[in-house]
């Protein structure tokens, strides 16, 4: 049967490795390889794992008003982000609900001296984000007379007065090499070694005869890099990193790793009805600037949110799962948003939203596990924090 889903430049590589392909966010992606999710999680925590994250978007924003535009749509500041650095933040609607969470990179200015950025939306939100950006540009950046089709045609981009948005997702690839050994492996592959690449920084490099951008970012709770490469170079870089010892990992391991690390996933912990304040992401919101959703978030911050995100933990291997109801003495207390058996901590854990009165670590809740009531304990997030090296500690 022909799939209607998109395929990354590494699709054939995954199939050849025995990856089990599943639909995710409009793409066919490997959920696991034959060694299994638990082995893949262990590889990332102890060595290095390699993920194809080409399903996530690559959206370039440039022009004289690029910085002003991003400071309108992002909760994090673009103006204070230096060239060479990256920042995690949210794209909110007027009510403060999260359209997407994203990492954006400040690139070198273009040949006209205009600011230029790369923004990475989630796979399933790419069209929604482009649609939203087009709307905001139409309303606020002088392109009112030419409302953009939504989503804009692939590769055509959005042009406002002073802002150009160019979706390069289909022309490129994105690989994530994650784990304590990951940076060393990427250094070994880069012609100039990636010296001095700090966390949440990026640099241009050459790998396997291709020009790439390497960011010291990720979504696993480990140190590591994400490599943006031309689509044609992806298989060679993948093969070189696996030859260096990186273990191919699928979406299943990625989900366990990010859950252990307490990192939210849009569609689970975040959606357009949930705010960064509720999700405990206030540190990624810059209230000193004006952005869409700011007033709603400031109001919520002042008056308290109705729900708050917490960690959840229970002994054993039977896991809390998304949508399980939480209660106290039979009264509703909240809902599980993510959960799994954690191979790293050998316990079951997850995340969920609860009413603030039940958010204190140590609070015991009842969880309806498919008709069976079990006790589950509220914990602080993250569940897992990587052991820090002496050097990282000194640096603070």
């Amino acid at each position, binding site marked *: 049967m022909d799939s209607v889903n998109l395929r990354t430049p590494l699709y054939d590589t995954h199939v050849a490795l025995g990856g*089990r392909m599943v639909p995710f966010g409009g793409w066919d992606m490997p*959920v*696991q390889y034959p060694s*299994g*999710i*638990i082995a893949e999680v262990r590889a990332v925590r102890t060595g290095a794992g390699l993920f194809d994250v080409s399903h996530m978007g690559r959206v370039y924003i440039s022009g004289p008003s690029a910085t002003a535009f991003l400071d309108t749509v992002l909760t994090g500041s673009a103006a204070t982000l230096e060239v060479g650095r990256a920042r995690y933040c949210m794209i909110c609607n007027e009510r403060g609900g999260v359209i997407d969470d994203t990492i954006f990179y400040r690139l070198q200015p273009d040949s006209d001296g205009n600011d230029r950025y790369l923004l990475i939306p989630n796979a399933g939100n790419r069209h929604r984000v482009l649609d939203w950006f087009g709307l905001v540009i139409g309303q606020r950046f002088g392109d009112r007379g030419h409302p953009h089709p939504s989503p804009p045609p692939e590769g055509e981009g959005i042009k406002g007065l002073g802002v150009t948005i160019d979706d390069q997702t289909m022309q490129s690839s994105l690989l994530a090499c994650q784990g304590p050994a990951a940076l060393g492996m990427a250094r070994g592959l880069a012609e100039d070694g990636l010296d001095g690449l700090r966390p949440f920084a990026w640099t241009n490099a050459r790998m396997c005869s291709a020009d790439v951008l390497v960011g010291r970012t990720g979504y696993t709770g480990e140190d590591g890099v994400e490599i943006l490469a031309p689509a044609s170079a992806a298989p060679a870089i993948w093969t070189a990193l696996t030859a260096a010892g990186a273990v191919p990992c699928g979406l*299943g391991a990625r*989900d*366990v790793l990010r859950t252990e690390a307490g990192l939210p996933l849009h569609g689970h912990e975040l959606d357009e009805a949930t705010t960064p304040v509720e999700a405990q992401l206030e540190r990624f919101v810059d209230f000193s600037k004006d952005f869409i959703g700011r007033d709603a978030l400031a109001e919520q911050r002042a008056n308290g949110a109705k729900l708050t995100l917490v960690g959840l933990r229970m002994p*054993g*291997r*039977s*896991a809390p*799962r998304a949508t399980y109801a939480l209660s106290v003495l039979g009264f509703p207390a909240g809902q599980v948003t993510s959960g*799994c*058996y954690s*191979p790293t901590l050998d316990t079951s854990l997850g995340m969920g939203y609860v009413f603030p009165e039940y958010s204190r670590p140590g609070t015991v809740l009842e969880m309806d596990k*498919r008709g069976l009531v079990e006790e589950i304990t509220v914990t602080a997030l993250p569940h897992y924090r990587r052991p820090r090296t002496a050097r990282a500690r000194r640096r603070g």
Partner: protein
Amino acid sequence: MNPNDRSYTREHEWIVIEDADARRALVGITHFAQDQLGDIVYFELPKVGDSVSHLGKMGEVESVKAVSDLYSPVSGEVIEVNAALADRPELTNEDPFGEGWLIRVTMSDASELDTLLSAEEYTAYVAEQH
């Protein structure tokens, strides 16, 4: 790959008769089932003395990714549960037709076996579904 000595459900369980006179049989899940599940981390199984019913839900299996229902191939009474699975549920990944069995039952109606698939039929069924 699917042993000829046993019968199969469309939900990917197997049953093998151990003692026809005593109507005693062993129940498990297939290689295909464990492969689709991936790493198994937990079984919720009936207890000794519980009744199970023909193609009725008898428990659940959790892998890292998902939860799936388990169905009993026959009606009867549970006389033993594979105790090794409590600590090592991965036995079912490693040896689904042997060490990784789930429960031992006394069948109440051996004619229910006639509704199940043979190894050949099950193999064809899996090939057709996937």
